[in-house]
């Protein structure tokens, strides 16, 4: 395994269809018109020396190293900024060029420290490489003149040009003494990330890279995405891990374990030690970009809190006892089997995880169906995107987003609703912002002023700051405008949708009751603004919808998803590039966990268990009878547990006590069970109520696949041995076998083969194909052997698109005198979900606690100042946290995150849920906020209980 190095073509790829032929050093090269001479040369295998260019940013022409000679042209133009011309004859090496390049390098090196041997970039430094490439043997100017290198001059006087190393960022350093001012970092921050945090301050020899207004990196606007570190040709911007460990020697391409963007990374290793994660340029989801989580936040994998031995205990009041794998598995198997004997076979179940691989998820649902003999399997998508599965299936026929991420490059209007991509899906947000800078228009529908509403060089045309819980009214009103003003695409609808259903929908949506004017008082969105937004969506060209949990996590989540599909069908925005209805998935494998049959009513590939022909292949293969009845969903499991008919659960990689709503109810459910098995990296909150703990493996410790929000199946590769001894799929297999199964998988590729053999949309998926293509988007079948980037191209999958009425039904969670404010919850850039991973990294430097955003008006009424401790109370429970007084939220709305167990935000959220799927209504809770002195009694009690339940008795 060598260190993987992608080819750097020097300047961006040009997508012109017109080809140009030229000669470079006598060889014919044919490239698209608009390509640079530098790129054309590299495509012919000739690498022209360069320092200030790379193929992810625009050419700049500042380093003067990439000079070439072109016959018939005067001078020596820079090859990065010179476009190819038909018949051009280029020479990349000559005595003149050699002399010029050497002269340039001499100047660079005369102001650069000569500490190569002890420099962190030694062996991985473009400046070093170029010095070698141009044959630099001497620096005639010496090193003593004016410079940025030495802190003190020859007579010990301070050098005002020298600046100390900035080590404020937890993950990388900025050493101005090594900077050659190529400005690649500044351009990457602008063009790749779109944050504009970096600049070049000063002029001429005084020029220096500066973060924000010459602040340190940590205090600046920098979001720590790593794009600048990635392009830096020297050790100026350098990962601290490389400084500490040294350079990597081999690497493996794998997939990030955080959000649903599913970025491809190279895990760069030295032996079994991970040196750094570097975004993979050939990754089709991220094209070489990353965010702080994927790039840097992997420290949890080696954290001291990792539990590496299996543990059991008779009662949850007892301390944990470390035991052998055999003992833990027999303990678990005996308990589960005993429960089934006493309480019936339906008394136990499983929860699969969106943080585990497809193969692991498949095995866990198989455990329920083939070993427990019931359909009591559910997954954490229940509490996030289950309404997406229902809504898109009912309208379009597939439970998945319609586009690939690259489709955004063709969008003219983007409707972002109930999603906050710059925090939750940062790499996709960068693509989106780039498209905005190119001129696309955006409509943001969100109660908060998210960053996309206005940030450098990006401004939404419309921000519909609706009242939480009124999505359906707003979306239906948009459809009302489109229908009543005749803006719909009749040809498209006649061709691709069910005409009768459309007629019914028109009758419903034309009713003046659905008009923007009629719902204005309810939604808080000005009618005229809503009308303009609807017109823009319908008439602005290719219109794409991107949505998140702000749409699904409501009592009408499924209705809202249906409403979005209606909008897209009305305007013909399904079935081509640049359009579509796209759920942004919270966790990396939400799509995959849903695909793999984790839901209690569906076998893999979204096929209902009630159909004999769906069950039959599995019954044959597994040698069991599969129940034709839907099993319990997570909230139903908890209800049944409280009631006493559900007694045991195997939870892989989920922390329902922290992540699920109405904590007290979840706790009561867990406390009612007699066998709770938690399979995780850490003793999470749920483990407070567990009897068996099985140590889990990180994404670095196992093979498998993740499926991202664009249905892309990407490889997860083992780069180190599982620290607990077993990968998660092996543990599930061991448990199944102790319970009497006879599973003999020796590699996850065999599990994928079983998935492909039984699931039509995965028919042609193999590990070989994934290795060959890098990744593949389902459906992957004989008809689409290399996968399907865009769905519904030849017609809507279900046959005819189905319009469905979307009556607005107000949630019963209403603000009133006792609870006058509405709480909505979300995520922040540096933390992830329950924080089990990110809280165990240096990301806590950015966000060490959850805070409550409250509008200055609401704050003043309550005498609350910025930073005060406040109590947040609802009818479900109360917690306390610090206030952040800000007008990002409207009056009447407060916002917080749920990353920290000390806050335990979900003690406040309620039991209300989506009518179709039971997806909880996290996004609307009526609350009151008041000043407080510190943690509430419940928080204190919880912390005590939590500490007690984490006691571990030393093994004998």
């Amino acid at each position, binding site marked *: 395994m060598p260190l993987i190095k992608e080819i750097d073509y020097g300047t961006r790829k040009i997508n012109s269809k017109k080809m140009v032929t030229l000669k470079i050093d006598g060889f014919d090269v044919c490239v698209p018109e608009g390509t640079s001479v530098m790129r054309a040369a590299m495509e012919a295998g000739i690498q022209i020396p360069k320092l200030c260019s790379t193929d992810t940013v625009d050419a700049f022409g500042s380093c003067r190293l990439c000079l070439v000679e072109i016959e018939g042209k005067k001078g020596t133009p820079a090859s990065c900024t010179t476009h190819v011309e038909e018949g051009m004859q280029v020479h990349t090496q000559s005595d003149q060029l050699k002399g010029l390049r050497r002269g340039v390098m001499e100047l660079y090196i005369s102001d650069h420290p000569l500490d190569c041997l002890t420099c962190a970039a030694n062996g991985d430094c473009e400046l070093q490489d170029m010095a070698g490439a141009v044959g630099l043997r001497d620096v005639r100017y010496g090193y003593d003149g004016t410079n940025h290198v030495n802190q003190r001059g020859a007579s010990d006087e301070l050098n005002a040009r020298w600046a100390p190393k900035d080590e404020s960022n937890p993950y990388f350093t900025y050493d101005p003494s090594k900077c050659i001012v190529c400005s690649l970092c500044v351009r990457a921050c602008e063009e790749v990330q779109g944050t504009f945090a970096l600049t070049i301050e000063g002029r001429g020899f005084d020029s220096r890279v500066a973060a924000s207004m010459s602040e340190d990196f940590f205090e600046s606007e920098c979001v720590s995405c790593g794009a600048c570190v990635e392009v830096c040709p020297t050790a100026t911007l350098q990962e601290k891990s490389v400084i500490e460990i040294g350079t990597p020697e081999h690497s493996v391409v794998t997939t990030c374990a955080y959000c649903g963007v599913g970025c491809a990374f190279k895990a760069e290793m030295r032996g079994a030690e991970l040196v750094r994660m570097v975004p993979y340029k050939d990754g089709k989801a991220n094209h070489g970009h990353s965010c702080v989580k994927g790039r840097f936040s992997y420290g949890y994998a080696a954290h001291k809190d990792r539990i590496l031995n299996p543990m059991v205990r008779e009662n949850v009041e007892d301390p944990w006892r470390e035991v052998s794998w055999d003992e833990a598995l027999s303990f678990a198997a005996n308990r589960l089997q005993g429960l*089934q004997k006493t309480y019936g076979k339906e008394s136990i179940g499983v929860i699969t995880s969106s943080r585990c691989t497809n193969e692991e998820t498949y095995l866990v649902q198989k455990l329920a169906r083939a070993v427990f003999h019931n359909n009591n399997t559910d997954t954490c998508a229940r509490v996030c995107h289950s309404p997406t599965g229902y809504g898109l299936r009912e309208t379009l026929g597939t439970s998945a987003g319609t586009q690939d991420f690259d489709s955004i490059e063709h969008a003219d209007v983007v409707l972002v609703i109930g999603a906050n991509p710059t925090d939750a899906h940062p790499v996709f947000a960068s693509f989106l912002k780039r498209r905005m800078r190119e001129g696309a228009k955006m409509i943001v529908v969100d109660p908060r002023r998210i960053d996309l509403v206005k940030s450098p060089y990006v401004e939404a045309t419309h921000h519909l700051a609706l009242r939480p819980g009124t999505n359906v009214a707003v979306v239906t009103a948009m459809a009302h405008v489109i229908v009543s003003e005749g803006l719909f695409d009749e040809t498209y609808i006649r061709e691709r949708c069910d005409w009768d259903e459309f007629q019914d929908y028109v009758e419903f949506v034309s009713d003046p009751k659905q008009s923007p004017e009629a719902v204005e008082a309810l939604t808080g969105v000005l009618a005229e603004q809503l009308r303009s937004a609807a017109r823009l969506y319908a008439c602005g060209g290719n219109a794409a919808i991107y949505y998140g949990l702000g749409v699904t996590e409501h009592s009408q989540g499924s209705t809202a998803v249906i409403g979005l599909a209606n909008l897209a069908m009305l305007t013909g925005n399904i079935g081509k590039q640049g359009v579509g209805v796209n759920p942004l998935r919270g966790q990396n494998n939400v799509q995959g966990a849903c695909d793999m049959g984790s839901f209690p009513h569906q076998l893999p590939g979204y096929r*209902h268990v009630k159909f004999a022909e769906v069950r039959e292949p599995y019954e044959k293969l597994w040698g069991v009878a599969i129940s034709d*009845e839907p099993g*319990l969903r997570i909230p139903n499991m908890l209800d049944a547990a409280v009631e006493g008919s559900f007694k045991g659960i195997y939870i892989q990689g989920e922390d329902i006590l922290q992540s699920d709503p109405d904590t007290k109810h979840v706790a009561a459910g867990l406390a009612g069970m007699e066998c709770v098995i938690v399979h995780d990296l850490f003793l999470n909150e749920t483990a407070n109520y567990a009897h068996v703990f099985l140590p889990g493996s990180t994404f670095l410790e196992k093979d498998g696949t993740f499926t991202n929000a664009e249905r892309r199946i990407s490889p997860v590769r083992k780069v180190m041995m599982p620290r607990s001894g077993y990968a998660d799929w092996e543990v599930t297999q061991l448990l199944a076998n102790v319970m009497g199964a006879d599973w003999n998988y020796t590699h996850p590729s065999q599990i994928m083969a079983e998935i492909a053999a039984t699931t039509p949309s995965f028919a042609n998926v193999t590990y070989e194909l994934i290795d060959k293509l890098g990744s593949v988007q389902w459906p992957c079948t004989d008809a689409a052997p290399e996968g399907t980037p865009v769905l519904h191209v030849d017609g809507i999958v279900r046959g005819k698109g189905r319009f469905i009425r979307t009556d607005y*039904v107000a949630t019963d969670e209403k603000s009133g005198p006792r609870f006058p404010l509405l709480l909505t919850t979300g995520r922040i850039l540096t933390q992830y979900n329950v924080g089990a991973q990110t809280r165990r990294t240096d990301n806590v430097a950015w966000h060490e606690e959850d805070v409550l955003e409250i509008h200055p008006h609401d704050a003043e009424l309550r005498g609350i100042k910025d930073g005060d401790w406040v109590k947040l109370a609802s009818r479900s429970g109360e917690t306390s946290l610090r206030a952040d007084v800000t007008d990002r939220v409207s009056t009447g709305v407060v916002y917080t995150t749920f990353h920290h167990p000390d806050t335990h935000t979900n003690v406040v959220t309620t039991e209300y849920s989506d009518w*179709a799927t039971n997806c909880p209504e996290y996004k609307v809770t009526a609350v009151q906020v008041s000043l407080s002195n510190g943690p509430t009694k419940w928080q204190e009690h919880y912390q005590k209980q939590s500490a007690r339940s984490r006691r571990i008795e030393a093994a004998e």
Partner: protein
Amino acid sequence: MSAEKLTYMANQIANFFKNKPHEEAVAGIANHINDFWEPRMRLQLFEIIKQGGEGLSPLVVAAEPAIRKPAKTSS
């Protein structure tokens, strides 16, 4: 699970279908419950209806005959 909660959930489903023609609404409610409600939940719903269906939407009550009767739970 509590009768109150189950009644609430059933009524939520009825609310989605209420503006459809009566027969379509009733069929929609029954199908949805058949597809997504585990037998224990359906048994309890029957029990609620048997007790007079207090608080239950008339549409849910009308859907009862089309809701699948679970087989006796095998253990």
